[in-house]
């Protein structure tokens, strides 16, 4: 059994009378420590996958297991616990708390964790040692994203979910962030899932899941993932 398994997952959004099928018969599996890219166009359903996988939403039907837990059966509270301990989120727009310093933003996550990593170390790891007392607004986009990553990592999650982590960043910075994520995956054996519409990133994933119109179009496993540095877009 894989670390993460999607079995016949279906998600339907109901808005009034109108039913929108966001996901339909989605099946895939991800192994522990894998660096996975989930790619697709806007509206293809990748965000829905992210939401469901991230415990922010529940599937309409189908089965999802993460580390042996059937999270598709989870109650809202279980999902929160799941998010709390198992998931690290990296958002496209960093979602830092503006009112908190770098350290504090990280601490915000570690506060609620069972076995958080050392905040200082994590910050150092993401290369923001010098700026740890700064407020987000005093940081550049990349730096902010690093903070976000640090925040996600500090929780010591089972899974790092990144939603368009480079979407708001310039090319170079994006690369650096991807590097950081890839390194983290490699070094920490962290399962990292990156959701992006940028197909150019696909080569760097251990596994690439392409989604389109709510369905998994294909799943590619790269035996030799390309390092970030060599990817261009």
């Amino acid at each position, binding site marked *: 059994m894989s670390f993460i398994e999607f079995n016949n997952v279906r998600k339907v959004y109901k808005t009034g009378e109108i039913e929108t099928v966001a996901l339909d018969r989605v099946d895939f599996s991800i192994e522990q420590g894998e660096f996975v890219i989930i790619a697709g166009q806007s509206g293809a359903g990748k*965000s829905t996958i*992210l*939401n469901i996988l*991230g415990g*922010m*939403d529940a599937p309409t039907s189908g089965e999802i297991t993460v580390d042996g837990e059937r999270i598709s059966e989870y109650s809202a*509270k279980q999902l*929160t*616990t*799941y*998010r*709390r*301990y198992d*998931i690290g*989120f990296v*958002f*496209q*727009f960093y*979602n830092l*708390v*503006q*009112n*908190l*310093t770098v350290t*504090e933003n990280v*601490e*915000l*996550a570690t*506060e*609620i964790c069972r076995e958080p990593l050392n905040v200082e170390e994590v910050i150092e790891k993401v290369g923001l040692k010098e700026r740890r007392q700064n*407020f*987000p*607004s*005093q940081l550049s986009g990349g730096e902010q994203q690093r903070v976000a990553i640090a*925040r996600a990592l500090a*929780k010591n999650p089972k899974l790092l979910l990144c*939603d368009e982590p480079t979407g*708001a960043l310039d090319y170079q910075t994006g690369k650096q962030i991807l590097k950081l994520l890839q390194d983290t995956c490699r070094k920490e054996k962290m399962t990292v899932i990156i959701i992006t519409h940028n197909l150019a990133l696909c080569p760097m994933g251990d596994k690439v899941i392409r989604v389109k119109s709510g369905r998994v179009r294909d799943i590619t496993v790269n035996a030799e993932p390309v390092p970030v540095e060599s990817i261009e877009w």
Partner: protein
Amino acid sequence: MKKKKLDLFREVKNSFGRFMAIFSIVLIGVAFFAGVLASPRDMRATADRYFDDNVLCDIRLISTIGFTAGDLDAICEENGLKGVFGAHTLDVIVRKESAENESVAALTSIPEDLSEGNVNYLNRFRIYDGRLPERPDECVVRTSMARSQPLSLGDKLYLSSGTSDPLSESLAVSELTVVGIVYVPTSISFGLGSSSIGNGNVSYLLWLPESAFLSEYYTNVFVTVDGASSEDTFTDAYFDRVAPVRDALEELGKERIAARTEEIRAEVAETVAEEVTEEVTDKVTEEVEKAVKEGIEETVLEEVEKAVKEGIEDTVRTEVEKAVREGIETMVLDGVRDAVREGIESATLGAVRTEVQKGIESAVLSAVETEVKKGIESTVLAAVQTEVKTRIETETHAAVTENVKAAIAANVRDEVTAQVTAAVEADPMSAYLTEEQKTALIAAQVEAAYPTAYEQAEAMYLEPQVEAAYPAALQQAMSLYYNANVEAAYPAALEQAMAENFEKTVHEQYPAALEKTMAENFEKTVSEQYPAALEKAMAENFEKTVREQYPAALETAMAENFEKTVNEEYPAALEKAMADNFQKTVDEKYPGALETAMEENYRKTVDEKVPEEIEKILQDTIDEATEEQLETVMEGADQWKWYVLDRNSQESYVQYRDAANQMSRIASIFPVFFLFVAALVCFTTMTRMVAEQRQLIGTYKALGYGTYAIASRYILYALAASLSGGILGCIIGMQVFPRVIFSSWSIAYQMPSMVRADNLLLCILSVAGISSVVVLAAFSACISTLSEVPSELMRPKAPKIGRKILLERIPFIWKRISFTQKVTIRNIFRYKKRFFMTLAGVAGCTGLLVTGFGISDSIGQLIKAQYGEIFCYDASVTLKNDNTAEEMQEAYERTAAQPEFTNTLFVSNTSGIVNDVPEAESGHEDIDVTIAVMDEGASVEKFFNFKNAVGKRESVDLTSDGVLIAQRTAEMMGVKAGDRIFIENRDGVRQEVPVHAVIEFYVGHYVYMSSELYETSFGEEAPRNTVLCVTDEITEEEQNAVSELLMDEETITGVGFFSVSVKTINSMISALRIITVVLIISSGLLAFVVLYNLSNVNISERLREIATIKVLGFYDPEVNAYVYRETIAITVVGALVGIPVGIAIHHTIMGTIAMDAVSFGKYIAPISYVYSVLLTVIFSLIVSVFINVKLKKIPMVESLKSVE
């Protein structure tokens, strides 16, 4: 435009929460504002309608001396009156049929005609149950404010007067049956008043037909003014209507009182005149009688004495004079007499001697002649007589012998006859002879015997018998013949003898004779003749001579001696006479004289004098007595007046009006505060809305819409929210608040169902007001945004940068604060505007709560402080004001002797006036106060606890340094300790005194003075008339028992236990407590709306952040805490800030709702702060529940969205 409208609807739909936020705050604000403002209006409208419908008198006249029928007629004649009713009132003691205890009932008469059409049927009843009385022994009772009616239909009440006068003097009935329970517009509140009988507290108000009352005087006259009912009774217009009538009646009152005073004066004068006249007549008569009697007695005595004295004097003088005169006369007379006598004597002696000599000579001559003649005559006579005698003797002897012989012859015959007869008879033979034989025998014998017998007899008897018979016969013959014979013979014999012898013999005899005679007789004769001659001379001349000589002699003598002698002798004589006779005579004469004088003068004088005397004093006495009587009857006559009381003086009206006014004042503070908060909330909300729609605004702008066109979108939004909220708020507020408030006041005031005032304008104004505020808020919120250029607007507004706060710079503290706390603190300081908004709302909420509780506390404390702390005594006994000092003292001792009273203080409580200026003027009106005077010293502490009203509230003593004045009184005058004020005592004397301290005091205007200060200020002792009493804990029954016992005393007029006062005041102001409830509810709503609204804003601003932390795995409570912790923190801070706010509002409110004489303290119990804060936090937590729901609904997907 259609698009825009559509856009607006959509906007409303999309941001329904926000719309609702504005809508609801406006709704609450308007509902509260309009509702609370409408409440007093509705209260007034209800009362106005009630008063009009039930014909509440516009003016009530009370006369201190009652109204006569004439007064009533005079009132009726005044212009502008509609209805007039003279009512009798009487306080009696009633006992319920079944019950033991007695209560005081105030009886009032009602007209006989109780029909709707009777304009004189005033103060009409609203029947709660039963019917109106029809007979004198039926009554209606006012409904009790208590939950259960103490009297029910059919109850029988037994009445007694409660005074020493029997009830039957004033009331025709002694038993009443309750036939109805009513409401009455004259008495709508708790207070039933006090009475001078029973326990002093009126328990029932009863009405019964006029016919039950016996008094000819009306105590009250109720009047309605024509046209006044058409005015709202709470407006000036109403009073403008009433004022002229009131003034006219006041004038009338003066006239009538003057007339009445005169009438009474006249009556009194008449009665007194009658009484006094009688009295005076009796008295004067008695006095005059006594005086006259005494006068007469005195006069008579005097007169008698004088008369007697004069008499004696006269007598004495006369006597003396007489004596003197007589003496003189005697003396003179004697002298004269002696002289005369001597003269006469010598004259006489001479004369006599001459005479005698002559006499002797002639006498001798004649004697001689006589002698001679006699000798001759005697010789002659003797010769004659001898011749005659011899002849007679011879003749007589012869005659006698003849006669004797005859007599012897006769005798012898007879003797012989007798002898013969006897012998015959003696012979027995004679018996046989007849008579004739016998006689013949006899005669024969006699003849025979006789011649012998004779011869015998002649021999024997002739001589003796002649001898025997001779002298006699001689004598007889002598007497028969002697003188005649002599005389016949004598003259011739004499003449012959004379002629022969006489001359010769005389000459021979005379010289010798003379000599002899002279020698023999002269001296002797003189001596013999002198006395006689003297006597004769004296007899002849003495008196005459004396008489002739005497007057002259007397005159001379008198002239010489009389006066002198009299004067010499008189005094002694008088003294003696007086000593001897005066008193005696007076005593003798006096009674008689007195009696006479009395008889003559007494009655007459008395009858004359009595009217005179009466006249002299009667008028004065009458005047004096009248004056005296008037003084009693007219006591306080200068105080006699009609009290013409318009509704401003009617307790029910005033209390109710004050209640409504208090509501008004409260309404004018709170709702404004609400409006302010509403405006703030709207402003925040609109600001947020504009902020959220930056891009949209930018778009519109880019599309070419004008600033105002765009702004109108928000203004319309705000207008829609505020108008709809306002209108609904009006509708709800108008229904809820007036009803709640009205029904709460209904606890304190008996009113019929609520009548709505015309509140349309109020509604319009309040809706318009708040709408404009909201619109203004919306406008000002978007105007700054709108001034930006579109391109800027298209970009997201730079998020507020995080900043270190001051606290972080103090690592010492900062390090100790937990992370989440840091976040919270940081957040709080980050969203300052919202922070202050929330703070304001919460502080307002707490403030309202503090105020609400504070009002309750202050009211409660007012009673507790006034009657529990300031007044340490439990009861006060009021003594009758016209008691004498002794009666006062006695009453005090009687009171002090009650075992229930553990301590008593005898003080003076009189009404007076204070002012801070010498004369009342505008802005410095006189304030009626109670002047309490007592001895300074330790005992005061047991009865009062005077504390400074300001500063540290330390205790102050009552000293003679100055007065203590109640804080409210001081406040109204604007004076403080050390100032000087003017106090006017009840006698109208105004003096300046220093203020020693302003004391904490809540009920009534009071000035406390030490006796010493009073005396030095007013120059007299304060009249003590009140006894303050301290009791142990005693039951109400015991209180009543003591009250009744004391009230039986003539000298005691009232016994008041504070427990009763406290009850009354409590119930009076209990309605104010509803304000507390209203405030708590309102503040809850406020807190809710503000917190909810601002939390909403907060959430909407931090949607992303919240979604993010949700994604980060914060449990719901953690999310809530994360968001709401700030709110809680602000709430706590706000609550703390709210405390001073509340204190301030409370102060203001207490200041504004202060009644004239009641000073609400500004006391807030510490627990109230706790309650307020706790309640605020609870409200906040309740809001958090709603916020939680809202937070829960926030989709985590929001976190994934791009920054707008």
